[in-house]
């Protein structure tokens, strides 16, 4: 059996005195899409930030391609092929749409994703390339944020609540692009509050509840009741 691309192993994480994650474990194989669901405050974003390196963790708590990267700083994890689409988009306000995409490709990692490919994926962006990134609509900003992450040609894409604050039709439009993204050989972790979307897009699902993994399994095999119970902790 091939080695998993990403292994999170008994991860603890917190903010000062407040512990957000308690011994969370997760595995992702290459080419897989995994969804992490859970209520607000369950620790989903903290999990992604720990994988991306924005939060400190034990050295062996995060393994990527078989190597322990828990002590690798965030800016070097990008070089290894981990890209995060942050919660709330977090585009650079001083940069135009084009510049936001270009800076995503700052490191110049080899791969299929180029500015042209991003424009193919999200045609509306090429019309607005010279505009300040934050002047776009929420959905368009989300496209820029995803494109920016893709420009680093990652092996692992982490998406933090890309449906947040967007109209359902826009969310569907964005998720419709997911197969094109995964089809390039990318592995994806999706953090979502929209359970329906998460289950539709992912093969494996993890449900977090108050910092712990309450449920995990194949998306097709989990029942509504099981998910409800795990989500709400009832």
């Amino acid at each position, binding site marked *: 059996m091939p080695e998993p691309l990403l292994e999170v192993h008994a991860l603890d994480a917190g903010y000062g005195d407040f512990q957000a994650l308690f011994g969370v474990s997760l595995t992702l194989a290459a080419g897989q899409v995994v969804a992490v669901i859970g209520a607000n405050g369950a620790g989903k974003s903290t999990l992604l930030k720990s994988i991306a390196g924005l939060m400190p963790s034990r050295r062996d708590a995060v393994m990527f391609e078989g190597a322990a990267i828990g002590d690798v*700083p965030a800016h070097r994890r*990008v070089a290894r092929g981990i890209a995060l689409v*942050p919660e709330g988009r977090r585009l*650079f306000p001083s940069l135009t749409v084009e510049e936001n995409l270009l800076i*995503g490709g*700052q*490191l110049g990692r080899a791969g299929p994703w180029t500015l042209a490919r991003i424009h193919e994926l999200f045609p509306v962006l090429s019309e607005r390339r010279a505009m300040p990134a934050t002047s776009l609509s929420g959905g368009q900003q989300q496209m820029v944020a995803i494109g920016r992450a893709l420009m680093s040609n990652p092996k692992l894409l982490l998406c933090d609540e890309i449906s947040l604050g967007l109209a359902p039709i826009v969310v569907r439009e964005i998720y419709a692009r997911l197969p094109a993204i995964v089809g390039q050989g990318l592995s994806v972790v999706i953090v979502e509050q929209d359970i329906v979307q998460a289950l539709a897009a992912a093969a494996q699902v993890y449900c977090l509840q108050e910092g712990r993994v309450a449920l995990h399994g194949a998306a097709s095999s989990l029942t509504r009741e099981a998910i409800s119970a795990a989500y709400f902790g009832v």
Partner: protein
Amino acid sequence: MEWLNIILQGILVGGLYAMFAAGLSLIFGVMRLVNIAHGDLIVLAAYVALVVTDTLGLNPLLSLVVVVPVMALIGYALQRLVLNRTLGDDLLPPLLVTFGLSVIIQNGLLELFTADSRKLQAGAIETASIHLGGGLAVGTLPLLQFAVAVAVIGGLQVLFYRTALGRAFRATSDDQPVAQLMGLDNRHVFALAMALSLAVVAIAGVFLAVRANFDPSIGPARLIFGFEAVIMGGLGSLWGTLAGGIILGVAQAIGAQLDPGWQLLAGHIAFLVVLALRPEGLFPKVQG
């Protein structure tokens, strides 16, 4: 006609002030840091130029080839080793550390070079002048300084808005954690910004050394001129800084003409008037 000459001189010296200010403005734009030792670093550059010209026998303007990289290196090390540790929401640490730095540089220079006034000789170019007709004349050196100042500011604009490094500066200043997600090492980006700032400081320092007498204590006044130029021009705008420098230079020239003792005062008053009437500056880009 005499007034026109005076104003022209003021405009040209304004270019030098704009160079004092450009480095300050850059640092504030990228990392929200105001370097109180900025003026003393300009004086330090002047002394480095002094050492280089004495040991290598170069014309001071040629010494730039050595002074610029030396100051850039000092800037990188300073940021990486000391100033990076002061960045954060609290404004006391960077302010007090750079203040301490200012005292150290001034007294260090005093120990090494004494309080004697120095000046670097650039040769014939210092007295050469170009006649513009109608009785107007400009010194070649001041004109060169102004042209260099415009070139430096233009160069910085291009760097900030057309290059990958400029993107890195703007992104890191916008959002440090997300900049890291782009593969940017914040500590390195800030250190590069300081290195760039001190490279500009080096140019300003050499021109200062050639233009007038200097000694270890004149740093704070250069800081104030630079600061006044930045505020009058408007935070975040490099061309605004040039405008601010010109206003300062002209105000000082007019004041000096009315009474030699009023030169500095006239500049400060111009600054206070702009602060009173249009506090955001003339061409603001950023709400500082």
